[in-house]
């Protein structure tokens, strides 16, 4: 048996030798003519020989620069890359992540069909829906649920009407991509199998319950830690406002060219775990939920962003100030040419403000934008800011 990493090293070493010669690369040398109003600095190009014999393509580039020449950048100019590429899930499946953990579930599972008013349809639960309190809607005994939350995630359903006595679950030590974790399963009173995978070096877990034990095992087997999830969203909250400061990319100029969007939601309250809100009111630093937005949902989202009115900074004083600003959602708008534009939604105290980097001022978001986000990102349950636990 071969170790994959050794195989990669061997493959790269072997393939590197497919390249046995290098071309005669060229770089410029500057040369000035006597200056005048219309004179130009012309760069002359000198060919550089590689260490081995010259063969193949010789690339020559000539550039004429008007005097005075622009100062050369001291560092490579890199576009801001807050959100990564979308990684498609295998056919028939969807990738869902939260708190740096991603699982694969069938593509027909609903998102956050949980808590009050839930149906019997299979669902994956993440984000704010995990931390919701009790509800009088019992979880159907035939329902399949996969839930991503904090390490203290309960692996059994606890609606008020359920028997809260759960069978013990024996956890065994496992590793997932080299990370230490615990995993186990047990049979619930309603006959479903419940499974739990919990990381011991991190505050994240996934719990699954289903009639078919194979479903539980398959979902737990798919769990992987991610730094960037399949929607391209970072598991750790980015400092988006700082990163976009000075950006020249205007997200509002090319809304009609948006092909897809990723929405990365970072909750402002610790609502993805069943724990009280911290006294300091610290914003959650982890990704709560994410989604790739296409089709009609994308049209609604783009229309909502397009409908924002930018103007003077609104009055954000209110009786309940929270730490501000904290990005609540980073929306990555992907254009047809592959470039990405960003819109950041942040909460200040009692309101939400939308930042478009090149806009000198802000817009207080309208309900249309938040409704568009709620219907796509949060789904199932209407989004609400969780109140601090007593």
């Amino acid at each position: 048996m071969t170790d994959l990493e050794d195989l990669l090293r061997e493959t790269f070493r072997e393939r590197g030798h497919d390249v046995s010669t290098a071309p005669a690369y060229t770089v410029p040398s500057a040369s000035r003519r006597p200056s005048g109003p219309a004179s130009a600095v012309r760069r002359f190009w000198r060919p550089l020989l590689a260490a081995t014999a010259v063969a193949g393509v010789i690339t020559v580039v000539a550039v004429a620069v008007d005097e005075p020449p622009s100062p050369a950048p001291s560092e490579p100019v890199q576009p801001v890359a807050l959100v990564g590429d979308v990684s498609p899930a295998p056919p028939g499946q969807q990738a869902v992540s939260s708190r740096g953990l991603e699982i694969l579930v069938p593509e027909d599972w609903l998102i956050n069909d949980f808590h009050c008013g839930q149906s019997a349809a299979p669902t994956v639960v993440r984000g704010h829906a995990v931390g919701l309190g009790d509800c009088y809607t019992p979880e159907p005994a035939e329902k399949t649920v996969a839930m991503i939350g904090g390490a203290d995630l309960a692996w059994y359903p606890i609606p008020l009407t359920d028997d809260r006595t759960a069978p013990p679950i024996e956890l065994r030590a496992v590793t997932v991509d080299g990370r230490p974790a615990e995993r186990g399963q047990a049979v619930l009173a309603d006959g479903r199998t419940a499974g739990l995978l919990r990381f011991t070096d991190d505050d994240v877990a996934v719990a699954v319950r289903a009639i078919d034990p194979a479903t539980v095992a398959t979902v737990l087997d798919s769990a992987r830690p991610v730094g960037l999830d399949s929607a391209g969203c970072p598991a750790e909250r980015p400092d988006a406002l700082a990163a976009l400061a000075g950006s020249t990319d205007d997200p509002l100029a090319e809304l009609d060219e948006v092909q897809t969007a990723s929405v990365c939601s970072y909750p402002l309250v610790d609502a993805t775990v069943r724990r009280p809100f911290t006294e300091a009111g610290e914003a959650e630093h982890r990704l709560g939920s994410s989604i790739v937005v296409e089709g009609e949902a994308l049209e609604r989202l783009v229309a909502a962003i397009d409908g924002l009115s930018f103007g003077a900074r609104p009055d954000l004083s209110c009786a309940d100030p929270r730490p501000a600003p904290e990005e609540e959602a980073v929306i990555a708008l992907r254009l047809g040419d592959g470039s990405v534009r960003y819109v950041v939604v942040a909460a200040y105290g009692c309101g939400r403000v939308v930042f478009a980097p090149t806009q000198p001022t802000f817009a207080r978001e309208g309900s249309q934008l938040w409704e568009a986000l709620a219907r796509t990102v949060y789904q199932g349950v209407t989004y609400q800011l969780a109140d601090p636990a007593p």
Partner: protein
Amino acid sequence: MTGIEHLVATRGLALTRFAYLLCGDRRLAEDLVQSALERTFLRWESTGSPDRPEAYVRQVIVREHLSRRRRRSSTEVVVADPPERATADEPAAADERDRVWRQLTRLAPHQRAVLVLRYYEDLDDAAIAAVLGWPAGTVRSTASRALAVLRADPVLSRGIRHD
């Protein structure tokens, strides 16, 4: 001979190989290196030689490659045609390496970049993070995901030892 001339004379081939492993296409690799050398020359002219010129050029190559891939159509796939070669290895071993090379095209550009930096350049995650401008945790998780994609290949998985 200037600094950059010396760099190209002594390391041009190595840089080309690196870029080739990154993108899987010889012509694109040469274009990346040429572009990186031009940027490096501009920096050399304005602020002096970078502390580690070759590392700087590699960084520019990687970032330029990832930047270009973001600007391309999402449906475009770089496919490398492995040349025929004689090998002294057992046929099975050579087939595995060929399979790995082909499966690398399934990876996202940033995933492939992390693997090249880790398993060809032998950089640790902190160094890779510095090259890409990422958090170290993102490097780890990206590598993990890339390896998972390769391990999921039904042909490779038969011959690979799993932890």
